[in-house]
């Protein structure tokens, strides 16, 4: 749902530099903000995976479902609840962990769909050109630029409210922006010597795409993947916040904020903890994306 980053519409300078990933990692280390973003992203992944495991394991669900009417809306640190409790006396830390699991699942599902679709269609259009390119470009133009939330709300009308609508909306809309970038890059790569050589040797097109083109756009994939996960996280949360996303008792972060704000006058924690969590996740992914972009896109690295 976040507004697409400038890279998504300023045609990225299509120079591909075949700098090995090892150098990239060294550069990432050198960029403080990006490094911090990377660390936070790793933390997010860790917490998210833990949350997903808890959500999927019936024997562990009690961690975020157990209620304690003697300790409702408790402040952090009270009765062993590190971040306090909600109105049912459920542990906010575990609920936030589980909610992060939902965010991660939505992020991964939606981003995978986006990347696979965008990469495939972008490569095909860029490599083959001609009528295929026209068709794919037409498709891109048809889908690109649609507000995610509008599409998600329409999906929610078609299906039952739930996170499926968000994932579908992202899968439907966001791929186009990505395909557009990939297509532009592939078009300029196509003219490069190593591709021409491969073609002259009679290498089949799928092999050229997989062996030579895809590895060369991996940098862009990484950059955009971090942005797309952020977009997915924030869209899911916003959607759940207005009540059309994840339904209780599933602890989506957005729905936790919507629920928790009703108790603001008693305790600020039930809304603030998940709110800060979302902000941290999005900040982490954005910083990581910025850092990666600086590394993989020299044209923008100058600033």
């Amino acid at each position, binding site marked *: 749902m976040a*507004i*697409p980053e*400038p890279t998504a519409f300023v045609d990225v300078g299509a120079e591909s530099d075949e700098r090995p990933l090892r150098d990239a990692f060294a550069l990432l280390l050198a960029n403080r903000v990006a490094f911090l973003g990377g660390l936070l992203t790793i933390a997010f992944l860790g917490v998210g995976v833990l949350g997903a495991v808890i959500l999927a394991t019936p024997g562990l669900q009690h961690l975020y479902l157990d209620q304690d009417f003697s300790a409702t809306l408790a402040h952090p640190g009270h009765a062993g609840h590190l971040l306090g409790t909600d109105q049912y006396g459920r542990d906010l830390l575990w609920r936030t962990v589980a909610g992060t699991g939902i965010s991660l699942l939505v992020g991964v599902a939606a981003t995978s769909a986006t990347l696979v679709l965008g990469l495939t269609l972008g490569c095909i259009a860029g490599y083959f050109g001609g009528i295929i390119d026209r068709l794919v470009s037409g498709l891109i133009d048809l889908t690109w630029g*649609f507000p995610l939330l509008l599409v998600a709300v329409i999906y929610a*009308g078609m299906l039952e409210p739930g996170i499926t609508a968000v994932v579908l909306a992202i899968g439907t809309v966001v791929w186009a922006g990505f395909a557009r970038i990939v297509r532009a890059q592939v078009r300029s790569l196509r003219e490069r010597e190593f591709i021409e050589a491969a073609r002259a040797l009679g290498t089949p097109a799928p092999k050229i795409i997989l062996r030579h083109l895809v590895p060369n756009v991996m940098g862009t994939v990484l950059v955009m993947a971090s942005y797309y996960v952020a977009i997915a996280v924030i869209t899911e949360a*916003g959607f759940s916040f207005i009540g*059309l996303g994840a339904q209780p008792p599933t602890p989506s972060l957005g729905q936790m904020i919507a629920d928790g704000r009703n108790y603001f006058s008693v305790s600020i924690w039930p809304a603030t903890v998940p709110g800060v969590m979302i*902000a941290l996740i999005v*900040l982490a992914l*954005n910083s990581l994306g910025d850092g990666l972009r600086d590394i993989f896109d020299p044209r923008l690295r100058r600033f």
Partner: protein
Amino acid sequence: MAQFVLRRFLYALLLLVIASVLIFYGLRVAPGDIVTAIASPTQALVIKSTLTKQLGLDRPLAVQYFVFIGHVLQGNPGVSVVSGAPISTIIRESGLRTLELGLSAAFLTYALAIPLGVLAAWKRNSVLDQGLRFFTVLGMGVPNFFLAVILIQVLAVNHHWLPVAGPGGIRHLILPAVVLSVEAIALNLRLMRSSLLEELSNDYIRTLRAKGITNRRVICVHALRNALTPVIALAGVILPTLLGYTLIVETVFRYEGLGFQLVQAITHRDYALAQTLALLLTAVVILCNFLADVGHHLIDPRVREGSRG
């Protein structure tokens, strides 16, 4: 050029037709039905069948689709099946409010982002620049609905400076407009800064400076014009996105605009209203994208050669 515009226009039209079919069929196969909804939650089955007939829901879907499109094209989208209110009235009233909100947000965005972006580039790496960078990072990270929750709590509930929600005068517009625009401000500010810095590193700027033209004049007269191009291009992306945000922001603030109406219509399974509103918002988005494309094409010849073949 004319060919380009025509092609984009046909694309837009095609997209609108596809969208109308998807929206119509999608909302009709949806679970839950209008008949139960308007007859109130515990309505007995007997009375449902008469309602179904009254609403024309027993006709084939394709017929219903063409009836719907026919009405919309005649500018008479009919009445809301839940409230009986004429949809054109709802659109006029709510549309004006959404327009008001959108324009306020757009005004805030550009009135703040452009000068601040210029300032940040000008005083690069100063405390001001650092502060603005911090703001942009936050503005792009904190979800707008969470920001809304906090602002409502602090400014409206704790201090009573602004109303919590509801329609009304300009005071009711401030919080929604601010919440709606924060992310766009951050994004544009950042883009303005980087774009201006890029422009300032060009050779012609160095030449100008060598000629002894003041820094202020260089920035304001020469560099700014070129540096604005990407910001204008971004507008084409931002407008539809802001429109999407109105769904959340209007709902949070009970601001009676199109977004709030659409969310309510979806929740109430008000087919006719939801379809028309979804189609209208979709048409606005398509129009925005079309204009942005054409505008971009006009401003920046590079686009013509670069991305389209």
